């Protein structure tokens, strides 16, 4: 039973490790705190007598709680969620990511988390709702509002630059 549990957790980490880290980083903006939050969530799941059936949303929630605790202890920093080694489809896009990230910072935490979980981590709205313990309509509304603000901020800065 323990082996089965550990296999499930190993699978979770292989599939979602990077996404969990991105989510934690979007909250803490501090690499070490974010990694501690991910490790803490896995350790917490490993110590449970049984695992929840829907494991991924529970793991995201554990990471979120640990990341928020880390923020309370250390405050938010300025480290990047995106891979520093550029990673978009086109080379020019990579240069835009730091700017995009600075704009993400200007959204409310609800909007930012909805965008990180849905657009960046690729979770369905149903899963985002389970992570945030909100209704699907609420998280979808946070996402749409956040994206609208982001587009507006993006065009404002582009117009300002030209």
């Amino acid at each position, binding site marked *: 039973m*323990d082996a089965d*549990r*550990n296999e499930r*957790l*190993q699978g979770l*980490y292989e599939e979602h*490790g*990077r*996404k969990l*880290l*991105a989510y934690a*980083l979007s909250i803490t903006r501090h*690499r070490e705190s974010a*990694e501690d939050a*991910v*490790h803490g969530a*896995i*350790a917490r799941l*490993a*110590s*449970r*007598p049984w695992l929840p059936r829907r494991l991924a949303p529970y793991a995201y929630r554990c990471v979120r709680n640990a990341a928020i605790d880390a923020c309370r202890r250390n405050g938010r920093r300025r480290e*990047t*969620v*995106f*891979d*520093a080694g550029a*990673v*978009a*489809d*086109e080379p020019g*896009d990579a240069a*835009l*990511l730091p700017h*995009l990230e600075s704009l993400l910072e200007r959204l409310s935490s609800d909007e930012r988390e909805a*965008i990180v979980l849905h*657009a*960046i*981590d*690729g979770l369905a709205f149903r899963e985002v709702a389970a992570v945030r313990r909100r209704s699907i309509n609420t998280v979808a509304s946070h996402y749409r509002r956040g*994206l609208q603000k*982001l*587009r507006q901020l*993006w065009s404002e800065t582009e117009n300002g630059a030209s």
Partner: protein
Amino acid sequence: MKDVEQLLRSASTAAPSEDLDRRVAATLRTRPRTSPAASLGWRALACAVSFAVGFAAARMGGGRGAADAARTVFVAQLAGDDACALQAIVAPRTGATGPAGVFEGSFVGPEEANGERSGT
């Protein structure tokens, strides 16, 4: 120029460090510790079952020896002493009017059960 949403979806995020990979692997290699509450729950269940079996055996003609054995199993399991509980099941009860224990088996004296032999 890409739309903001397309850009977000195509962006790759920071990868976990090797240190995090190692820590997670080490955590998952370690056998999870059963929580005290869960352990107590299982032990209480084992107690109840052993007591019920002993009681039923006594009612069916096992006599006083079986009831004593059941009581010993119950107390030993409650105290977390599985070796003592097992011994109570297989060891004959002195002075018992009925069969030796709940189950008849080879005799295991208290000293031998504790890893000692007489005269050594």
